[in-house]
């Protein structure tokens, strides 16, 4: 296990880099996914088509392909940037489809009477969605949204495999590959690092769920 202590700085930096990537991707996909869910339930058919196609495309396509598309395709069309940002774009594109489905299921779980009441007091579709329906919907979908976010954290490991240096998976690749360290202790350390992110995240989401749950 010495390898973990000798390379502690590497592990620590990888841990925080992974957290950064996950933080940006989480915020981005929650916002985009919620907007898409709004599209999918809107009265305007073309918006519904956009939402539906988005979900079907990104739910059925491997994240690896989305990542490669962003990383190697975007430079081809003259969009240049760091792999770091391409990886976040890919994670957001992919995860937002799952967020959209979770939020939509929450919208469907809000009793119809709530929307009727909102209309009765004269709110428009946009107003009733943003101030009546969504706040309730999001509270009911904390558990599925939590699973989506935890899956996203785990998916972020893939970005290290295609060229984002310094995050946790890339650290394990560097140590076991070019430095030739024994794989078992290196990878045990990496697994512990991921568990340090996913287990507290799961516990936090469980707490949040109990705190905001609506009895329905």
């Amino acid at each position, binding site marked *: 296990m010495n390898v973990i202590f000798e390379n502690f700085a590497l592990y620590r930096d990888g841990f925080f880099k992974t957290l950064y990537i996950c933080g940006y991707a989480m915020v981005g996909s929650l916002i985009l996914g919620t907007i898409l869910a709004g599209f999918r339930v809107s009265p305007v058919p073309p918006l*519904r088509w956009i939402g539906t196609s988005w979900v079907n495309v990104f*739910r059925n396509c491997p994240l690896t392909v989305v990542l490669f598309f962003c990383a190697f395709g975007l430079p*081809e069309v003259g969009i240049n940037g760091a792999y770091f940002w391409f990886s976040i774009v890919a994670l957001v594109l992919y995860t937002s489809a799952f967020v959209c489905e979770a939020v939509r299921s929450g919208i*469907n779980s809000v009793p119809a009477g709530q929307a009727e009441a909102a209309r009765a007091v004269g709110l428009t579709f946009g107003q009733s969605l943003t101030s009546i329906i969504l706040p309730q919907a999001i509270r009911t979908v904390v558990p599925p949204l939590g699973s989506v976010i935890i899956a996203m954290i785990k998916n972020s*490991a893939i970005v290290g*495999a295609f060229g984002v240096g310094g995050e946790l998976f890339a650290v394990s690749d560097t140590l076991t590959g070019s430095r030739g360290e024994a794989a078992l202790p290196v990878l045990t350390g990496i697994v512990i690092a991921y568990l340090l992110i*996913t287990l507290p995240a799961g516990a936090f989401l469980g707490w949040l769920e109990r705190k905001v749950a609506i009895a329905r």
Partner: protein
Amino acid sequence: MSASVLYDAPGPRAKRRVLLFSILAVAGLLAGLYVVYRQLDKQNQFDADKWTPLFDPSDAQFNLVWNRISEGLANTLMAAVLAVVFSLIIGTLLAVTRVTSAPWYRWIVVGFIELLRGIPVVIAIFFVARVLPEFGVSLEPMWYLVIGLTLYNSVVIAEIVRAGINSLPKGQREAAESLGLTRGQVLRLVLLPQAFRAMLPALISQLVVILKDTSLGFIISYEETVRVGGQIVQVLSNPIQTYLLIAVIFIIVNYALSRFAIYVERRLSQGKKAVKTDEGAAVVHADDLAGAGATNVG
């Protein structure tokens, strides 16, 4: 579509407004597509040599490219099917032992499940591929991928099967036990067949996940579809076109699988309707799915 929760059947004014917004949305979409098109055109992404090897049978490289892609697809399917079969076997064993065993053993199983659920599947695959050789076990890359995927998915399937067993009415087990069946027989003859039936749609959906995850074989040099795509890109230097093609292949296969899962779920819920008298609930359930299906088409 249950969106009717949010708005009434539109009257004349609302219809006009919906039409207006539709036109705006379509115009916005077309404008966006045009920007993408112009950018692609400006960067010469519509040059014939980037497309014909993939889509024009008369191109000299067409057969070569598609031979490689079909090899990749065969490898993807092979790894996915093996991973599914092994995950099913191990997942069922885990679920059964978790349901029936002594508490101390159950805690081991729960710990195992929580551990494997908390780590990224790409780490599981990498772990297998790097650590097994240290213990003198050298395998083909495919087996590292299959073992990694199995480790990860068996615990997911274990949870699915356990949920299936728990969803059965308590009377099933009691009736079977009162007939004098042993615990093993109760599980094997009465509970598991029903649990699998109830869980079939969830299991088919898990197939989609496994198919997508085979693409992680690229980190351990397994020649599945995405890695083959990478090799094609290196030769033809057309990442956009090649990855687009591969994405479309995956989307078609996985979309078909998802629809199949919905179809099976509907069939099963219809079967239940005939058995149980709980007709109202079954009808609502089937309608929900029909609605989801209809929006999926749109």
